[in-house]
């Protein structure tokens, strides 16, 4: 069959003619309709990583505590006492742009399944979100829908949403970023890998029935959006968190059965992707009969069954003889468990509908055969530093910044999320990082997501390093030692040379920063083609990071704790206004270099803070990030509901930079006066600049001669509604 004849079909699965010819070469004939659909799904950017795979090879993925790196449903790291933390972050940008509630909800649902497929009980959700300015109704609609969808799913499921971030920028108008991270816990001996390693094992499809929703979802997520995208609404799945809760409990019980050999989530590309990956990882083949799949509606053909992205489904592999035990568990939860196939000794996936074979393909071609793309890359033009307006009326600037959408309190959002269920939340949303108790132990897990896309837009290499450094600093400020990283790379259309260059530079920055800080990357996701009507989003790598606190008694808060405590700045302030919130607020165009990232200095700072927290020296610690020093001080005052007196902040930089520069590797801490000698000794030992700023106390926030505001006024600005 000629390629030209199938052009419409190729467009439906977003493959190009060269890829079609590659398929024909690999399988030695023209593919059937079902086969073409399967190739389309698995060779999509979303599943096949055909553009990003060569870049991702440079990421460090190994470390002493890593139990499972990338390539499984989620990564896993040892946290002692025989336990492992399992986590991953994933994007749901395209669906959320079309149907924000269900797009975000199923994003949460998908990442929860990735974690309980590993045998782990999900204990926390975090979300990293970006939208266009809320003045535009469309953006507001997307924002409200996404927040409601995250809450709607997580609250009903019963997993606390403990953290995340949200930023607003014109660059995300009509193309929001919705990344969801899930963290779970499992005993080492119960950690699951999803691989079919023995012929004869029985393949069960469990959970929800299969419907026509979400067909071509993976394909849809791999092309740019345009004015016709709303017609793709059928490609967006609909979530059922109640069913997912039952499925989770059932899978956690399954995980205790010796007869169960693998559990695999059905996500993008549904049964096709899940089954093929399961078999290919174990170097086995698979025989599937789609006639045995429970359906939501009549008349579905094999193509639809294989490509449906109906939610709340899992594949389970069972040793022969274990079928009844599996069925008993699913009967208890009143869920379907259909035996739909068997593992074979070959290396092919065969799909039948009853006796009729509708697809018979070599797995290697489907999974690894995708021709990799290496688009042209062109560095962005170097932008000139912007002129920095002089600081006038510091109080007004401070209040404007504190009330700005990017810096104001996130309470109106997170109070719509259950952040306490499961009784482990020690520090909830609104701080540097969330801190959760590891049940049954005195250990804590600190969790955060970070990514300042203004820095990345100015310099993707440095900006991505800054995201890694800031995430680690956030964890350290709670007293936790950073353990490992998950990441979600959200970029525009990689066929555009400047976008591909952004991606290249960003991955290089990610790799270098993680190496310098000894942080393995154990899972991740890439979301490309975030382009709407020809406009690309700002490059947005999001870093999810997990840290461990050996003793929860050593935890540290971000807010000031006690009147009379002394406040210090750790680290050096430089004249670094590029990408700052100050300039954004002043309406100055983004330009110049972002703040420098010195990973050696970052490492020293973090060691110094951990040295302090382990010895109980600190009363509070808060990372200096967006908005700079004065914003960090205001946040510590607001979080602790205590005033501050800083007679003068001195330094060798301009007045603006003293207050609002966003120099990296800095933190604001407070200590009780008698611990100051220890603080000085520790900072001296680590070579960290220590600058006394002021004293905690009173009802006012005073900094230098020009800021003196009642705490209530500060709070009013900070708690501006969205």
């Amino acid at each position, binding site marked *: 069959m000629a390629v030209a004849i199938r052009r419409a079909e190729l467009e439906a699965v977003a493959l190009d003619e060269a890829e079609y010819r590659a398929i024909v070469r690999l399988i030695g004939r023209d593919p059937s309709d079902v086969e073409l659909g399967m190739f389309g799904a698995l060779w999509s950017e979303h599943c096949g990583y055909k553009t990003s795979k060569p870049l991702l090879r440079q990421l460090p993925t190994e470390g002493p505590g890593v139990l499972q790196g990338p390539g499984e449903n989620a990564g896993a790291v040892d946290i002692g006492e025989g336990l492992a933390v399992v986590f991953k972050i994933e994007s749901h940008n395209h669906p959320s742009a079309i149907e924000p509630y269900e797009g975000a909800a199923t994003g949460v649902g998908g990442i929860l399944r990735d974690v309980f497929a590993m045998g782990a009980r999900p204990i926390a959700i975090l979300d990293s979100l970006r939208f266009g300015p809320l003045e535009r109704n469309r953006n507001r609609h997307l924002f409200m829908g996404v927040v409601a969808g995250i*809450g709607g799913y997580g*609250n*009903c*499921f*019963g997993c606390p949403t403990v953290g995340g971030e949200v930023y607003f920028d014109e660059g995300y108008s009509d193309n929001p970023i919705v990344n969801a991270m899930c963290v779970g816990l499992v005993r080492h001996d119960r950690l699951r890998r999803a691989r079919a390693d023995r012929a004869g094992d029985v393949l069960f499809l469990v959970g929800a029935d299969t419907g026509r929703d979400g067909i071509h979802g993976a394909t849809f997520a791999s092309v740019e959006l345009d004015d016709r995208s709303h017609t793709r609404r059928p490609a967006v799945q609909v979530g*059922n*968190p*109640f*069913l997912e*809760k*039952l499925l989770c409990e059932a899978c956690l019980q399954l995980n205790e059965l010796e007869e169960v050999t693998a559990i695999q989530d059905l996500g993008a590309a549904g049964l096709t992707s899940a089954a093929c990956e399961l078999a290919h990882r174990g170097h086995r083949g698979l025989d599937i009969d789609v006639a045995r799949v429970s359906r939501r509606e009549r008349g579905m053909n094999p193509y639809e069954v294989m490509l449906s992205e109906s939610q709340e489904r899992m594949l389970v592999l069972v040793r022969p003889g274990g079928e009844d035990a599996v069925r008993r568990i699913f009967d208890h*939860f*009143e869920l379907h468990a259909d035996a739909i196939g068997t593992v074979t000794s070959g290396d092919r996936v065969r799909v039948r509908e009853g006796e009729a074979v509708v697809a018979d393909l070599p797995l290697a071609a489907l999974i690894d055969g995708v021709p990799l793309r290496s688009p042209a890359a062109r560095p962005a033009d170097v932008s000139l530093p912007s002129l920095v307006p002089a600081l006038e009326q510091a109080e007004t600037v401070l209040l404007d910044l504190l009330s700005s959408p990017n810096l104001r309190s996130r309470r109106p959002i*997170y*109070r*719509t*999320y*259950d*952040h*306490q*269920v*499961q*009784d*482990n*939340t*020690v520090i909830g949303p609104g701080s540097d990082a969330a801190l959760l*108790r590891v*049940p049954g132990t005195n250990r804590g897990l600190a969790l955060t997501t970070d990514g300042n896309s203004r820095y990345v837009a100015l310099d993707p290499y440095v900006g991505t390093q800054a995201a890694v450094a800031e995430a680690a600093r956030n964890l350290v400020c709670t007293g936790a030692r950073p353990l490992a990283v998950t990441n979600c790379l959200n970029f525009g259309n990689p066929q555009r040379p400047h976008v591909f260059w952004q991606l290249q530079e960003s991955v290089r920055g990610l790799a270098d920063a993680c190496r310098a800080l000894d942080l393995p990357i154990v899972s991740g996701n890439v979301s490309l083609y975030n382009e709407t009507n020809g406009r690309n989003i700002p490059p947005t790598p999001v870093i999810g990071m997990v840290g461990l606190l050996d003793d*929860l008694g050593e935890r540290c808060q971000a807010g000031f704790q006690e009147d009379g405590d002394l406040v210090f700045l750790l680290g050096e302030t430089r004249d670094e206004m590029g990408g700052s919130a100050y300039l954004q607020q002043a309406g100055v165009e983004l330009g110049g270099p972002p703040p420098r990232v010195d990973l050696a200095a970052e490492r020293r700072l973090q060691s110094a803070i951990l040295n302090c927290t382990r010895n109980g020296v600190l009363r509070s610690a808060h990372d200096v990030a967006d908005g700079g020093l004065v914003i960090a001080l205001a946040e510590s005052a607001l979080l602790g509901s205590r005033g501050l007196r800083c007679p003068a902040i001195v330094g060798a930089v301009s007045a603006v930079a003293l207050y609002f520069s966003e120099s990296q590797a800095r933190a604001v801490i407070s200590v009780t006066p008698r611990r100051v000698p220890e603080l000085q000794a520790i900072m001296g030992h680590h070579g960290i600049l220590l600058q006394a700023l002021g004293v905690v106390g009173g009802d006012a926030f005073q900094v230098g001669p020009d800021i003196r505001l009642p705490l209530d006024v500060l709070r009013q600005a900070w708690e501006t509604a969205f």
Partner: protein
Amino acid sequence: MVFPGTWSDRDCAHAVADVLGQPARFIDHRARRLDDVDLVILPGGFSYGDHLRCGAIARFAPVMEAIIDFADRGGLVLGICNGFQVLQEARMLPGALLKNASCQFRCEWVNLRVEQTDGAFTTECRPAQVLRIPISHGEGNFYADPQTLAALEAGGQVVFRYCMPDGRVVEDANPNGSLGNIAGIMNRRGNVLGMMPHPERACETLLGGTDGLTIFQSAVRALQRVAA
């Protein structure tokens, strides 16, 4: 009690067993008998996905007959959040819980004034004591028709009201629009309590406070008195 979709079951068991050291076990929604139980807790969650109406399907669960019978014989029953909604749907407590006035889910710490110390669940509280306990719900807006409300008030069945930290019961302290700032009510006999806030989330200093423990301790004390 574990209905499909219940999720505070493990938190309640943690509070009762790990924190208070009392034996606890999970009861399946299909159970027909309760056997050796002294206190039944209907925990929070989204039983049956909150389909139709919160608690509307759970009331038909086979176990409900046994629970009603247990309460009729004086057994202690505590409904928390979704459990409160189930008790209302099962007509074990009056009134209804509507969508929050804000139309949004709310998860935050609130203050509760103890209005009644005669029931089984507040004997360890002082009258007008203020308890700090979190809420987490989208449908906690207590409503009852004027007659029912008057009867609840007259009968001393209102157990908790949302209040300010100093105990003032004012509109600003009301997180969901509940009539009379009502956060929890009991039956006439005082052995069945329904409340929207989650006491099981306020049982450890590490997690922000221990005021919720008082409610479980009161129940334990009430049972000990009966036994003695």
